[in-house]
């Protein structure tokens, strides 16, 4: 599964960068986050309760950061296990770009999902992932005291 997107957040780049690296901000932004710990500067462990439709699955996972360029971009690899429900793993790249009215957060993600969740949830995995990403950015923007600006409203410079 691939999930690519961009979100405009009404906050300057250094603030967005700081937020993305602050586990307290992340804890409040990740939907269903129950526990999050930074084990090493580039390793984060988390427990997340996913609630989508009929599914309630608790995932324990870890996140490894790499290629970190401050205020610009980073890559991350993640894997999580939800016991009987299944597992997810993949990698993601995040880039921050200056934009009118704030910071454009661009992300590309490649993930694979297996186990029961993959078998019966396959039909709506993409839609679910998009919903989780949207929820995350909404909460994240609120944590930074800003808001998400709908991209259609942004004048493009091209």
């Amino acid at each position: 599964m691939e999930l690519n997107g961009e979100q405009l957040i009404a906050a300057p780049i250094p603030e967005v960068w700081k937020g993305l690296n602050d586990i307290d901000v992340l804890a409040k932004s990740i939907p269903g986050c129950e526990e999050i710990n930074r084990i090493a500067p580039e390793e984060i462990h988390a427990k997340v309760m996913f609630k989508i439709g009929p599914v309630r699955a608790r995932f324990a996972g870890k996140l490894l950061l790499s290629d970190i360029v401050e205020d610009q971009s980073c890559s991350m690899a993640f894997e999580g296990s939800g016991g009987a429900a299944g597992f997810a793993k993949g990698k993601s790249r995040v880039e921050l770009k200056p934009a009118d009215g704030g910071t454009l957060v661009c992300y590309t993600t490649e993930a694979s999902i297996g186990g029961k969740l993959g078998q019966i949830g396959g039909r709506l995995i993409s839609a679910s992932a998009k919903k989780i990403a949207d929820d995350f950015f909404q909460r994240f923007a609120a944590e930074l005291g800003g808001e998400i600006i709908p991209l259609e409203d942004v004048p493009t410079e091209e």
Partner: protein
Amino acid sequence: MKSAAFDYVKPGSLTEALGLLAEAGEDARLIAGGQTLLATLNMRLSEPSVLIDITNVEELKGITLDGKHLRIGALVTHTEIEESDLIAKHAPLLKAAAPHIAHRAIRNLGTWGGSLAYGDPAAEWPACSLALNATMIIHSPSGERRVAASDFFIDLYTTSLEPDDILVATEIPIADSAQVFCFQELARRHGDYAVAGLAAVAQKQGDMLTQCKFIFFSVGATPLMAGKTQSWIDGKNLNEQLIVDAVKTAREEIEVIADLTNSAEAKQHLVGVLLERALKQMMA
């Protein structure tokens, strides 16, 4: 696989059911037909502590005609809708849609209210309720409230229902003699979830359609109303060119989400195919 252990209660009235639900909070799940919930429990994708079986609650049963509205209780099964004379006469779109829902065994048990409350974007009833301007009647410990179908489906599997709410029934304005409709879905096999579907309703006056409602389902996170396409068609004489333009408008305005087997482009194409078929059928 078998489900994890849970408690089971079967209240005899709506008040009792609401009380039990308020008490147990988010750990409780309501069960009626169980056609989605039981599979989820057995796969252990969800482990609620208590199931509240609402199938004895009289207030949730039956299809009744009340003046200019049809009231469909939340516990009415898909088969009851398929076979009801009141539905055939006053909400024929539902009769046309019912046979598309899964298979007979599932239609015998699965319920109208269950399908609406679950809010699966591929399901038939959420799309039909939007096309027919349905109103959801919802009870909570603080009383009754009414929510238009257009405000009910919020996001993927997300409705405006709160954890202590019970969807009691739905009211649908009855069809008059000028109503035309079309229900179409494209699925790989009959009974599968649709790759794309359309519930269409309009009033027909000569060569014109007015008060058009085109609801596409199984293409996005919720059923999607084609507002621009509806206004484009509304009140104009229907001809080949208008249909071509409408198909183009619908393909542009409906924001489809790809799934694992169908690309966004494929779904977008099917949106147009469905609309063209529906318009031709409604004008025939």
